[in-house]
């Protein structure tokens, strides 16, 4: 495996990991997770949300540990790591598996966004044509390299600040009694919600891929944890806003509670705020999908060194466009996203700790040989 150092002009400063982690975690599910969360544990869902958020800190610790240890052996990123751990063939197989996972995450994200546009703004919009336009913009961004992608993440963070501040407006017609009585749901219910919250919090593990692109990576750790805490705070606020604004029965029928909440806000010049919110969400979509496409194309480049990343990227974008068009209805979409969420959870809580264990085993073995 080549052990090339990434050129410093292509690296980003450690602060940016905050925006990267936060940006990857905020996805399309932030608009709809409240319904899912309320299904099993009703108004107590915020407990699960908080627990999930805290558990991600633990996983992040494992991820950072893994990457830090790997620095002395080879390129500290997942593709090279898997090749080193499990040999060339199994490593490549695992790489393909990881790439296809990342690929489906992007497709689900993009398809989910197109679905929202189709439901709320343009009902007769063609999925294929629109996915193609998105893909062109994303291709253009990824061609700018990792720095440009990080830039879109940072800007999306800046843009989203006013949108999140809107939650303050919820206080006006909030029913805080909706939260009471607290802790009425069983641990089983909460655990089920915990499992279902997976897709919201997944995304921060992408640091496994871009770690070598961070300057002074030992300083990035604290920013990663800050990012995770911010996300947790954000999800907590949103779940509380949904709980105090909608009755439990209402919440179970709302597909996109966040959009319905925005719909209830009126400004003198803007009557339907959710239109702006949806359009605004493009600035979350672009960085997320860009980073995903970057990861997959880089994976192809590392697995088959003959292919250059820019050609791999064209292929990836074409496949994304086609896959988006292939998902026809809500049932297929739900089925796929359900599976992806489960695989993601498995990766986070089982596979990554296993990798750390395996790394430790290899180190022991190496020490014995010497």
């Amino acid at each position, binding site marked *: 495996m080549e052990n090339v150092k990434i050129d410093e002009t292509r690296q*980003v*400063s450690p*602060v*940016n990991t905050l925006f990267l982690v936060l940006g990857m975690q905020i996805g399309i599910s932030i608009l709809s997770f409240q319904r899912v969360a309320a299904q099993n544990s009703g108004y107590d869902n915020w407990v699960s949300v908080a627990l999930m958020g805290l558990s991600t800190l633990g996983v992040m610790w494992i991820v950072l540990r893994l990457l830090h240890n790997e620095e002395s052996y080879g390129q500290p990123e997942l593709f090279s790591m898997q090749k080193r751990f499990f040999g060339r063939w199994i490593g490549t197989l695992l790489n393909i598996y990881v790439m296809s996972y990342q690929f489906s995450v992007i497709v689900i994200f993009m398809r989910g966004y197109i679905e929202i*546009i189709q439901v709320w*703004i*343009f009902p007769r919009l063609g999925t294929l044509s629109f996915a193609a*336009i998105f893909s062109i*913009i994303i291709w*253009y*961004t990824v*061609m*700018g390299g990792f*720095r*440009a992608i*990080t*830039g*879109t993440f*940072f*800007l999306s963070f*800046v843009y989203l600040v006013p949108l999140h501040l809107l939650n303050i407006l919820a206080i006006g017609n909030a029913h805080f009694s909706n939260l009471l009585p607290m802790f009425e749901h069983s641990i089983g219910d909460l655990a089920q919600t915990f499992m279902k919250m997976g897709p919201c919090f997944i995304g921060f593990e992408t640091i496994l891929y871009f770690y070598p692109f961070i300057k002074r990576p030992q300083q990035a750790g604290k920013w990663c944890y800050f990012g995770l805490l911010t996300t947790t705070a954000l999800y907590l606020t949103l779940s509380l806003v949904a709980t105090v604004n909608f009755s439990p029965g209402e919440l179970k029928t709302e597909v996109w509670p966040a959009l319905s909440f925005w719909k209830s806000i*009126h400004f*003198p*010049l*803007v*009557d*339907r705020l959710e*239109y*702006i919110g949806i*359009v*605004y969400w*493009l*600035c979350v979509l*672009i960085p997320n999908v860009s980073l995903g496409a970057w990861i997959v194309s880089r994976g192809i480049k590392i697995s088959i060194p003959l292919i250059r990343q820019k050609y791999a990227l064209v292929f990836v974008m074409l496949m994304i466009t086609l896959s988006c068009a292939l998902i026809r209805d809500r049932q297929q979409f739900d089925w796929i996203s359900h599976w992806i969420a489960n695989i993601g959870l498995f990766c986070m809580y089982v596979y990554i700790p296993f990798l750390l264990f395996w790394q430790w085993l290899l180190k022991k073995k190496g020490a014995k040989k010497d």
Partner: protein
Amino acid sequence: MFWYKKKNQSMKEEQSAAPKTIQELFLQLKDNPDFSHYQHDQGSFQCWISFFNSLVNLESVHRDVLPFLYDSQIHSFSDVQERIPVEKVSHASDLYTIQSKLMEGCIVVQEKESSLNCLIVPTVSREGRQIEKPEIETSVIGPKEAFVEAIDTNISLLRKRIPIPQFTVEQFRIGKISNTRVCLAYIKGIASEENVNTARQRLQNLEIDHLIDASTLSQLISDNARSPFPQFIDTERPDRTIAGLFEGKITALVDGSPSALILPTSLIEFFLAFDDYFIVWHFATFYRLMRLFAVAFSVFSSALYVAVLTYHYQLIPTDLLGSLITSRSVVPFSPVAEALVLEIMIELLREAGARLPTKVGQTIGIVGGIVLGTASVQAGLTSNVLLIIVAMSALAAFTTPNYRMGTTIRFLRFPFILAASLWGLLGIALCFTFFVCHLLRLSSLGRPYIEPIFPLRVTDLKDSFVRFPYSLQSERPMLLRPEDTGRFNKKRVQKKKGKPSNDIDE
């Protein structure tokens, strides 16, 4: 257009036309009425004198050169060199040097007509415009000098304000035919060596036949020539150039161009008027923010009108929607056609105003603004609301202090309007995302283009959207990676001001 695509071929052409011997050169030049070439055979020293009347300073020739050749004491070349009271008289024996010196305005003295051994007496005339007030970047307060076309005058304007030996000027010759003098000026010890090297490299790599203006040069050496965004500032103000030099920037001056290029530059600097530095920081910040708001308004307003009226009329409160619809009820066109027609009309007015002489230009403004505007509303061709929006966005675009950036801003409206007519608000967002991605990818002399925003550098934010008081700006911009980062010692400044005492009055 400027570039020689077939390099070898053009070189061949050049060689065939070029004179081989000095006699051929003079034969070629003899037909020109402004060329003097004669034998001087009075006195004890005989020689051939040749020069261009139109290029030399005739007064100095008659006063400082010719009378001394009549001196009976002169017998040889070295005597001439000693006696003539002109600095830098030199020898030359290479045809190319002789030719170029002759073309620059030097007098060439030969012993025999065919001899290559020549004496070059520099008597270059300095004809040119006087230093005047800046015309494009005018300011109410502050210095009133502007660059002129002569590069030496421009350099002297700079050097007067930086009286230190570290101020370095490097000269380049650019253009295969025009041989234009281009100077890179920077302050050693402040400007980053890396930036200077990049700039030098870009100038040396240029392949072009002629260079007329600094704006041409800026397009030629910019990082991405296909981008609509200008990547270097061109200014006609020496004070602004100096401010850049003190920050660690580099200036490129082109002979014959009344503007200097400042490199590298970030996007935000195009929206800073230099007046901002002459007024107190509160007002400077206020006007700066207003200007940035104007830019946003100018780009988005017409597009939003089109998007809202074509697709998202639900977005507007019912009361407002009523008046919008009454204003549009008589208009037979779709919002996008209406907006495009008005926008193009405004662009036409601007173009006509720029092409016409000043006196006629004012009339155009009145005709366009008042007559066409009201008439088109009365004729039912456009709605009142759109007229207001378009006029205001045109006005807003003109607040951009840099002319070239202003052009870009006005151009940007059209893709936004088209996108809005295709996909409404989503189209505007898509278009915006695309341009943001484009800006993220741009660089200026290898430095990130939208720098204080991304990569986020908090110290540079002090002079971007807001202008902090000078006492708080103790560091030079990080964008340039200056060798010497501190402008002044922060602690000493605080001490001099006197620390505020602990009580109200003591």
